[in-house]
């Protein structure tokens, strides 16, 4: 499967074996995984897991997918639903993910934004109004750190509010931006609850030798909105790992296909108890899960 990691990491083997063993209990029912985990997320008590064969959207989410693949990447694979799990207990707020993302995705060095924001919060609190997005050091033991980026929501307010359908949801769960259609009205930025969308106020400037030459990472024109793509150029090309996942020094980020019960993300969602999705009360059904 496209998402199963080829490279085993030293020190992670025992854990993977454990996860595989756990995965066998629900093995073979790939399509049942997501409804189960959403039931888990809702109840947070890990109750009996319903094994039903539902579509990739799970219960209650019927989103009209655009049949056309986005022009700059390969079409969405079948039976795939990408998700990310972020271990906030492990995250030290070093911002390595944010910087790696900038160079991976050809974000203008002078454009004034990163796809990933990190918030430093007081221990025991999830209060965005008093969070600190401008901390310098990170790693403060009295604080905790929450990385936020595009959640690739199942019910994305940005897609609902784009007047010209320049952003859309694809069958593998990615919310993608069509840089050829975007008119730059910024309605999506107004409506995104995660401050995940960014406008190219000026022409992106990137040093020539640092440009990612992958044709699936076009350099955006001035005047369009862009956001985290879940590294669409990698994950649609057989590599089930985003750049931010790869560089995280504490392995706080896990990425994969939740429809594959053997995947690390599916396993974590099943086994970890403390779990939340940011602002899920807005009904956005985000696809980044925070565990602690």
């Amino acid at each position, binding site marked *: 499967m496209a998402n199963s990691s080829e490279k085993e990491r030293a020190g992670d083997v025992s854990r993977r074996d454990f996860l595989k063993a756990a995965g066998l209990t629900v093995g073979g029912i790939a399509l049942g995984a997501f409804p189960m985990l959403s039931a888990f997320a809702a109840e947070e008590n890990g109750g009996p897991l319903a094994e039903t064969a539902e579509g990739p959207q799970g219960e209650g989410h019927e989103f009209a997918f655009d049949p056309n693949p986005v022009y700059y990447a390969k079409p969405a694979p079948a039976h795939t639903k990408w998700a990310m799990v972020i271990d906030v207990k492990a995250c030290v707020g070093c911002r390595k993910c944010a910087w790696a993302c900038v160079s991976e995705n050809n974000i203008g060095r002078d454009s004034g934004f990163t796809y990933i924001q990190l918030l430093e919060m007081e221990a025991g609190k999830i209060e965005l109004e008093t969070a*600190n997005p401008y901390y310098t050091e990170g790693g403060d033991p009295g604080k905790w750190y929450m990385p936020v980026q595009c959640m690739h929501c199942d019910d994305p307010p940005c897609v609902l509010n784009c007047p010209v359908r320049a952003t859309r949801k694809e069958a593998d769960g990615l919310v993608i931006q069509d840089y050829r259609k975007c*008119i730059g009205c910024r309605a999506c930025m107004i409506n995104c609850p995660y*401050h995940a969308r960014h406008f190219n106020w000026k022409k992106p400037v990137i040093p020539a030798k640092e440009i990612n030459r992958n044709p699936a990472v076009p350099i955006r024109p001035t005047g369009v909105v862009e956001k985290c793509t879940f590294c669409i150029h990698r994950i649609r090309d057989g590599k089930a790992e985003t750049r931010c996942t790869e560089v995280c020094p504490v392995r706080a980020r896990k990425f994969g296909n939740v429809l594959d019960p053997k995947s690390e993300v599916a396993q974590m969602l099943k086994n970890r108890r403390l779990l939340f999705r940011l602002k899920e009360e807005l009904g956005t059904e985000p696809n980044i899960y925070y565990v602690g």
Partner: protein
Amino acid sequence: MANPNLAGVEIRIDELKKSTPWFWAWVSTFVILLVIAGYAYVLQLRNGLAVTGLHDAFPWGLYIQNFMYFVGLSAGGLVTYASIQLFGAKKFEPIARIAVLQAFVCNLLAALFIIPDIGIPWRAYQFITSPNPQATLFWDATILNLYLVLCVIDLYVMITGKGGHSLEFKLTLISFPAAVGVHTVTAWILSFAKTRELWHSALMAPLFLSSAMASGIALLILIGMALRYFAKMKLPDDMFFTLGKVLGTVVFVDLFFLFVEIMTTFWPPSRTPGHATRLGLLLWGPYAKFFVPELTVFGALPFFLLLFPKTRRKVWTLATACVLIVIGIFLKRFALLAMGFGVSVLGPFDASYLPTVPEVAITAGIWALGILIFTMAVKLLPMESAPHGENATQASDNGHEDVPAAALQAEATTHV
């Protein structure tokens, strides 16, 4: 030389020839502003919206503030006109055409303010080729354009007198809901954003409408007074005073809505940190310098000026109240944006915003264009609503008109 006649509308070129140098000085001032704005816009197209003070945490600024403001001014103008047609407010008859002209020009400016705000304006044809019916912005664009067309038709029917009052009445049945609708949908752009806590309030649309009526009627009174003075248009004092009374009521409703919003935010059992932090920015934070005057000097003060007959029935105090309201609602539109952006949805990112010189120049240019169109329309088109013979007879035939406006005007001239 006979004036040219365009589809039944006499274009009064001879009026233009009789104009004073002051008129041309007035016109050229705004032409210069327009040229400066053109240069600023080229600058913006070349360098991107980075030339504005906008950024990711404050993505909509002066342009959208103006857009919402002008939609309001426009709706206010048309509601005044509709009250003549629908509620028989015949006192306002002399200013009917001006009201519709105001509705048209302001609506046009509102639409124009969208253009510099969007990043790649020439892609906007996709509103037609690839529309998203779930997006509020799509509906706003639709109703805005529809309403613009309705204003032109309204004006044309009024000027030519074709179809008489019966047609005017029927048209109002369409354009009045459109005027209310355009403002409601504009409010929904903000209030349907469920992620912006203070915007996501069902009160937003009524609040928008009350502000729209307040600013629209106030501007109409000011324009009427200016035209009476400069263009020697025959507008009776009494009409202004009655408009002032309506204005006072609307301002009261507007302030009441604000009061309700503030109470809901701060009353201890109702208070939530997200709401309180954000509205706090407007009451004692960095935006207080706009919002507190909006409530007091530009809100309560004009209300009291309009409340007491002694000040309402005096031209200069009425004009003062109107100027305050027109400025106040403009500030309120800014406060509205600050309410949504002051604290980002993801915490305290730097959300300070100050318009830059190019941004102000483009804004001034669009204002100048509006003033130019308005000036030329008043100069070239018959804007005084003294019914023509044909019009008046049709009116009384249809029973919508008892006292010809000319009689009111004659009365007024004796007073003045």
